[in-house]
């Protein structure tokens, strides 16, 4: 019985190698397939992260526009006087930004280029490694005399 079986097996030990071209072809095809999937998955994941970051940036800007510590009581515009005396710690505790993110905020008067800056400095390394969501809009800034000036508000958010 056993003898008969051995006789029927025509391939022997070396028989496995008859399938080698087929195996190689399948391995190459699977490798191409997985590489393609990876090539598609990575940019989509990056884009999703970027969208989450952009939303954080918009939320930060909206919070800032409602922060009473920097708004003029009567006009509800940004007060230059209050910006002068704003503490960074107070701003951080009010904004409550997710710990995955860092931010910086700058106000600038268009006429005089006078500038107020809050948050973290962005190093050149971070700048190159992670994308930055940056939101730049015009804004009104009220001086001590109640006069409104046109300014620029820039909010930047990045991972790190």
């Amino acid at each position: 019985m056993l003898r008969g079986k051995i006789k029927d097996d025509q391939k022997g030990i070396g028989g496995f190698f008859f399938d080698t071209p087929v195996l190689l072809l399948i391995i190459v095809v699977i490798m191409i397939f997985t590489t393609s999937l990876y090539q598609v998955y990575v940019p989509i994941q990056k884009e999703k992260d970027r969208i989450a970051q952009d939303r954080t940036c918009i939320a930060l800007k909206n919070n800032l526009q409602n922060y009473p510590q920097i708004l003029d009581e009567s006009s509800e515009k940004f007060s230059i006087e209050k910006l002068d005396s704003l503490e960074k710690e107070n701003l951080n505790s009010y904004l409550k930004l997710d710990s995955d993110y860092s931010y910086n905020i700058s106000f600038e008067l268009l006429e005089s280029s006078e500038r107020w800056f809050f948050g973290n400095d962005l190093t050149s390394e971070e700048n190159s490694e992670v994308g930055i969501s940056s939101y730049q809009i015009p804004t009104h800034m009220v001086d001590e005399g109640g006069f409104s000036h046109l300014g620029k508000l820039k909010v930047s958010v990045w991972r790190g």
Partner: protein
Amino acid sequence: MERLRRTKKDEKAVLSMIDAILFGIILFIVTILVFQQFGGALTRERDLKSSEFRREVVHDIQEVALDSVIEKTGYVNLSHDQSRQVKLTNITVEGAIKDYLFLEHKNQDNEKLTYDLSGLESDIYQIYNKCAWDVSRYYFALGSSYETSELFLSNVQINNEEGLPPERAASTNTIMLGMHRVDLTLYIWR
């Protein structure tokens, strides 16, 4: 007998290769489908991101621009063969737009009245250009109409809303002009 065995073995090898090639073709088709599907998703994500940002920005620009104050502006009343300069000081852009639409309507409605409103129009444009282009780097167009008058301003060569690009974002504010509600729409794009 030996020849028959060889032929059978060869046939099996060929069949295996055909199976492998078929497997490869199926995976190739699946890859194309995945690329199409995910590529579309990526485009949608990108569109969503830019449209969300633009929607927010256009609203902020419109609010700030309408609330801005023009310190000195005016128009020329050329009615009844005279030339009278009318000066306006410290008026909001919203007020300037109302004046423009009202006077332009009178201009077209009454043959005896003639106004040169180019100064007023230019000052409204300057504020919008400062807010949309100088600060935020967006192209813009502003459109509004009241009775027979129309206001359309843009920092690109477009004469009406039909020429606007499809990827624009818009914000419409309703202002009151007398008893009439007037829609004022700002479009921005990059």
